[in-house]
């Protein structure tokens, strides 16, 4: 009886340790990283910020996409918004799609931001940050440029107004549209 009890306790202890190890392995395996250039952009479906309904990334397949992650509390996003709107009006005739993804933000403040900066491209909300996380984003603004096949052409981990990223953004736009 004692031997059986001892064996059971040992089994339970081993099971607990194995469970914890499995949890650690799962956690390590599910850490989110930015999709590298050339990789397929993670699929998503998000609610529209500027109206009812949802938008999925897949529905834009066949068109180049500029995917901009932003938030109303983000200071650099303010100056970037003007540039994005200007580029959107410049490139929209060439079939490119601009999508803004509002991240970890209050919807009311985000809508106010969109109105204040007169942004006209499609805005989506990702309050929980689930989609933003799948793009490996830890701070905003960040921008991805995707080609017609939905592959990443460029990842700009900072404001496109920054001289470091401005040139890269222009060249990525040209590559995506070509």
């Amino acid at each position, binding site marked *: 009886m004692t031997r059986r009890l001892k064996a059971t306790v040992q089994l339970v202890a081993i099971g607990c340790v194995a469970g914890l190890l499995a949890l650690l392995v799962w956690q390590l395996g599910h850490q989110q990283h930015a999709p590298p250039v050339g990789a397929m952009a993670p699929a998503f479906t998000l609610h529209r910020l500027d109206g009812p309904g949802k938008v999925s990334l897949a529905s834009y397949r066949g068109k180049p996409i500029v995917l901009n992650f932003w*938030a109303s*509390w*983000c*200071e650099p996003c303010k100056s970037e918004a003007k540039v994005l709107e200007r580029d959107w009006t410049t490139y929209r005739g060439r079939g490119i799609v601009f999508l803004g993804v509002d991240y*970890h933000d*209050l919807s009311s403040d985000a809508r106010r931001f969109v109105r204040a900066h007169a942004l006209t491209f499609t805005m989506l909300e990702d309050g929980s940050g689930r989609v933003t996380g799948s793009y490996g984003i830890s701070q905003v603004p960040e921008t991805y440029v995707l080609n017609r096949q939905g592959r990443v052409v460029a990842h700009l981990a900072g404001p496109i107004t920054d001289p470091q990223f401005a040139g890269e953004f222009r060249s990525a736009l040209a590559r995506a549209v070509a």
Partner: protein
Amino acid sequence: MKLIVRFAAVVGVALVFAAPAAACAHPRTSLAFLEGQVMCPTCHTTLDQSDSQAARQIEGFISQKIAACWTAQRIESALVANYGQGILAAPSHKGFDLLAWWLPIAGVLGGALALAFAVWRWSRRGEPGEPEAPAGSGLDEETERRLDDVLARFE
């Protein structure tokens, strides 16, 4: 006369803003309380431990809703609707989240039971009724007699 009009205007404005506060039908919650209950979504600490812009935005929202007489529960629900369940520092008391509340209790209870059982088994070893060592010295008669002789010399 102008002064009286101005005074009346100030009092009127004050009353307009004070009226909703006075009309609060329940004890007003506080920012300090909710700051410990709500997470900063970008820094993964509670609001009271964060100074990020996202945290300040949420604090502003909470202050605004407290002023509008919202209860803590209503404010939390609004934040959950916007940011998802992860905005709350503690898991909910529903569904799978219940595990987070009950597992530690179950662990403590299980540990206490295992300890009690181990103590019970240990204490039983020394209890009467169990086989004891046989009585007597275990020496043969000759040795016992010689030992008695030796001891008698010392008396």
